[in-house]
């Protein structure tokens, strides 16, 4: 990436900036500390045993997934109001990150749920909402890849980014009421969050922070890469090379 930047564009913004370097180092350190704390420092849970340690991966991954889609929502609004392509670049980069982290979170949750709940997946409000969020943004990426690039794609996906995000609380409400009005087998809820020892909570917080920094690093990297791609495309079309 460095070579390309220096050769093709003398502009400052395309060098791997200090923000990228800082977040790269910070996320490496934070993730190492986080995994150490999750696997060694945090005490073993009395009832669930080792399976509980998935919690340190599962919750931060889903948190980052949700955060990524908040970013898609905000930058979709930003794009529609300003029509500046940087917002569109942020939105599409964040949607990709969101899908990756949500997938990680859902898979980790399923691996945990099998020994603890006895089922792989539960269609409770949280489970369903997460799955719908995942589906919405997978379709967001599909829309982008099918329609191709250009301002029309940016507009359409901004609309989808907004509608998809607004839909999330509706899904949550509807599934919650669905369960309360239609009695269904109740699911054993985990009490790990309520009576959590301090070491566990600390390990959890470190993992949460580490994942957030890692997301920031990936986003900066991805946005810079997309900017280079856009520049190359513009240069090609001005030179008549397609």
């Amino acid at each position, binding site marked *: 990436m460095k070579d390309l930047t220096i050769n093709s564009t003398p502009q400052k913004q395309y060098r791997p900036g200090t923000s990228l370097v800082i977040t790269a180092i910070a996320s490496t350190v934070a993730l190492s500390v986080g995994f150490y704390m999750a696997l060694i420092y945090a005490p073993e849970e009395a009832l669930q045993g080792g399976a509980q340690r998935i919690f340190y991966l599962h919750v931060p991954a889903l948190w980052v997934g949700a955060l990524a889609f908040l970013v898609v929502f905000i930058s979709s609004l930003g794009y529609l109001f300003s029509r500046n392509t940087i917002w569109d670049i942020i939105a599409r980069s964040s949607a990709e990150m969101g899908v990756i982290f949500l997938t990680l979170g859902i898979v980790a949750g399923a691996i945990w749920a099998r020994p603890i709940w006895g089922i792989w997946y539960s269609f409770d409000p949280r489970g369903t909402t997460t799955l719908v969020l995942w589906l919405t943004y997978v379709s967001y990426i599909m829309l982008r890849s099918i329609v191709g690039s250009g301002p029309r794609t940016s507009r359409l996906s901004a609309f989808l980014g907004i509608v998809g995000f607004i839909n999330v609380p509706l899904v949550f409400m*509807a599934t919650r009421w669905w369960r309360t009005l239609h009695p269904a087998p109740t699911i054993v809820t985990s009490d790990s969050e309520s009576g959590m020892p301090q070491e566990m909570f600390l390990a959890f917080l470190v993992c949460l922070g580490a994942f957030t920094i890692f997301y920031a690093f990936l986003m900066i990297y991805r946005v810079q890469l997309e900017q280079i791609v856009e520049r190359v495309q513009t240069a090609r079309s001005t030179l008549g090379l397609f």
Partner: protein
Amino acid sequence: MKKRAFGKDLPGLIQQTWLLLKKDALVELRSKESIPLMIVFCIVSLVIFNFTFDLRTSNVTLLAPGILWVSFIFSGLLGLGRSFTRETERETLAGIRLAPVDPAAIYLSKMLACFFSVTILQLLLTFLMVVFFDVNLAKPFVAVALPLGSLGFAAIGTPFAAMTMNTRAREALLPVLLLPVLLPLVLAVVSSTALAMDNVEWNEISLWIHFLIGYDVLFLTISFLGFQIIVEE
């Protein structure tokens, strides 16, 4: 059509919507392709549901609300896709845009056209449910839930159909994009239909009816405002 300013004047908007709606009705009456297609698809799916669920449950009536709405949504998606495909195939949408017509009028006319055609579908579907599954759907709250469900479907379905109209694989893309957004609506209409069939009191069903009204108002507003972004050139 008279040339009109690209304004947001209400009488102009109503007139344009009315003219476009008449045009859609006329095209449908002459071609007879969209509504008959939905109806036949709907009958086929009801027959399939009747057989596939028959094996595992002794009483298919219990599954009636689900069957009703799944058939409705899938048949409706078929008609929804057609409504804009027809415009792009004959490049009429570009003509309408050049007329010039307010995009808001295009949205309203398409949404109402969709609402009317799915209402026809729904009346027939309700009749078929009675014939095939012997369920009693003549309940006051069913009559409230069904139009609210159709309106929500038309409200949010229309901009999504417009989004996919010029794309490759649009027939597959439309349901993939739309179904996650329709999920809360489906849950609400299936619940309220089921509760209405069980003759519950108003206070038990009111939560879902209010949810449906809220969903319809929310997505009518968002689609009305967002439609301009979608059809913009």
